[in-house]
């Protein structure tokens, strides 16, 4: 059983009347790779900064390794931050940059030298010790920034969109490196990004932040397969969202009517007749239907085909509703004006339509 490394208890943060973080509770385990994912302006970076201490909370408590650090200044917290634009000291060499934290903590020279050497090996930057940051590529600067934080052996490493300034190819490589380094050192990583691919590929768990609150926190797989809110379904991956209304309820089953004029049978989950629901179907959950299929089938007028190598994304329209589905290239499919689709009602996600209640 792993212990809780970082714990946020009812954290609020306001800037001049404007509420940025509205009551966040979050436990992060030791050695976990947790990502705070959300659109820009959702408060994820502010949340990260409250953990590093660079931002004070308006109310609530923050614990790191069981210790209340709410009023502890940044340099006394056992965390380090990797900043979005690296924030390397441009007048210092790579080695001096990495050494800085150890020097400030008055680590003996011998040990300091050993740790700097080890970390430079870990980030595969041997031979670059005497270079200045301006003589390095973006990816190399990124590694140095990472090393400068990691060399202090923080209990938690906070990463604020560290890959956003790198190009696509480098980013993919760094994603792999980050995971490798994190697993090797076993340090808890809290990672902030607005890029869902980054979040899904690296994290143990992802917290989806929207409007200053956590919408959902779960493993990447569960977030994708079982989104709990419309926002999460929309933010993670592609999704078709259908408004639906409960038509009839029996003991175990309920019949709902989708806005595309299709009635489907689902498991009854204490629904009431007339209740509004949202049905979420991922593009890849639609399959081509055969002539003889009858349940959960409907016809789509196709509008656009977007070829994507292994599959083709198709945009279509059913009763004024735009939908998106995927055709695998080995499927028996010819570009038609109309195509019959089916889906399995066990796979789809059904949510209560909160908007209607407000």
């Amino acid at each position, binding site marked *: 059983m792993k212990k809780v490394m970082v714990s946020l208890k009812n954290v609020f943060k306001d800037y001049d009347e404007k509420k940025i973080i509205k009551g966040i509770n979050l436990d992060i385990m030791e050695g976990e790779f947790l990502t705070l994912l959300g659109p820009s302006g959702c408060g994820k970076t502010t949340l990260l900064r409250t953990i590093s201490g660079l931002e004070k909370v308006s109310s609530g408590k923050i614990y790191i390794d069981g210790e209340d650090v709410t009023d502890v200044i940044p*340099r006394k917290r056992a965390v380090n931050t990797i900043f979005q634009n690296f*924030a390397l*000291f441009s*007048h210092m060499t790579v080695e001096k940059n990495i050494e*800085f934290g150890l020097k400030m903590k008055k680590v003996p020279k011998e040990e300091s030298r050993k740790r700097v050497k080890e970390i430079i090996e870990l980030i595969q930057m041997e031979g670059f010790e005497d270079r200045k940051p301006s003589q390095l590529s973006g990816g190399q600067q990124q590694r140095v920034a990472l090393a400068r934080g990691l060399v*202090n052996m923080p209990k938690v490493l906070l990463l604020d969109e560290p890959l956003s300034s790198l190009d696509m190819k480098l980013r993919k490589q760094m994603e792999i490196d980050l995971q490798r380094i994190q697993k090797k050192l076993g340090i808890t990583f809290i990672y902030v990004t607005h890029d869902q691919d980054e979040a899904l590929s690296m994290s143990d768990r992802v917290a989806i932040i929207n409007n200053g609150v956590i919408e959902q926190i779960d493993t990447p797989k569960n977030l994708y397969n079982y989104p709990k809110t419309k926002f999460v379904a929309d933010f993670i991956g592609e999704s078709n969202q259908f408004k639906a209304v409960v038509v009839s309820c029996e003991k175990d089953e309920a019949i709902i009517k989708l806005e595309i004029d299709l009635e489907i049978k689902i498991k009854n989950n204490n629904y009431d007749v007339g209740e509004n629901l949202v049905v979420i179907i991922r593009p890849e959950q639609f399959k081509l239907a055969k002539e003889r299929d009858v349940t959960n089938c409907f016809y789509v007028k196709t509008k656009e085909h977007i070829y994507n190598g292994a599959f083709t994304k198709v945009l279509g329209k059913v009763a004024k509703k735009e939908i998106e589905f995927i055709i695998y290239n080995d499927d028996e499919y010819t570009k038609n004006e109309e195509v019959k689709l089916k889906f399995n009602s066990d796979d789809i996600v059904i949510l209560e339509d909160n908007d209607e209640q407000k």
Partner: protein
Amino acid sequence: MQRHKHLKNIFILIVFLFLYLPIITLIIFSFNTSSLNIVFEGFTLDWYTKLFSNSALLEALLNTIIVSVVSTGVSTIIGSLAAIGLYKFNFWGKELINKLLYIPVVIPEIVLGISLLSVYTLLKLDLGMGTLIISHIAFSIPFVIISVRTVLNSTNFQIEEAAHDLGANELKTFFYVIIPEIMPGIISGATLAFTLSLDDVIISYFTAGPGSNTLPLQIYSMIKTGITPDVNALTTLMIVVIMIVLMISSLIQIRKIKKEAM
């Protein structure tokens, strides 16, 4: 093509002659036996020996060095701190101060000289080295602030947060991170302040008193009675000193570039 190349070379030659001919003439006449700067009669080093026995001139040289060094030091420290303060903090009237900074830069020196003089008279300060140094500090500070601010504007101030995050307190952050990071701006501000102070005539003319004659003022008073070859000798020496300083600084720069290229 060939003709264009010649035209280009001739043009460059003319530009260089225009820039350096007066200086070369001056150097040549400093070795002239005749005291008239018209014809070269013969080679002599007399003017140089005469120069070193001219106690008024040597005293002026010493005064100039004291004034320049002290005013550069003080204005660099005040100017740099002011630039950091103006950059980092928001306070009432900040915009106004930023605009006002340019007034001493664009105002005619004679106005600044007169206004400083009237302030000293009002405060009943005796003119001398003190008032001279204060005046030089006053007109140097805006130049230092502007020079440091240029570097600050291109500095990512997140390094300050990074330093705190890595365990540095305010003082260490300031001395180990902020100051070295903006050092190029500080150095160019200091250089500017030093050169401005070194050859200032107008403001010094108003604010210097007895016993605080500076070199430019001394030369100015000497040439009222015609340019004598000992002034030529003095300026030649100054050129030599400047050349040596320039050469050393370029050598350092070259070595630095070579080291970084490795």
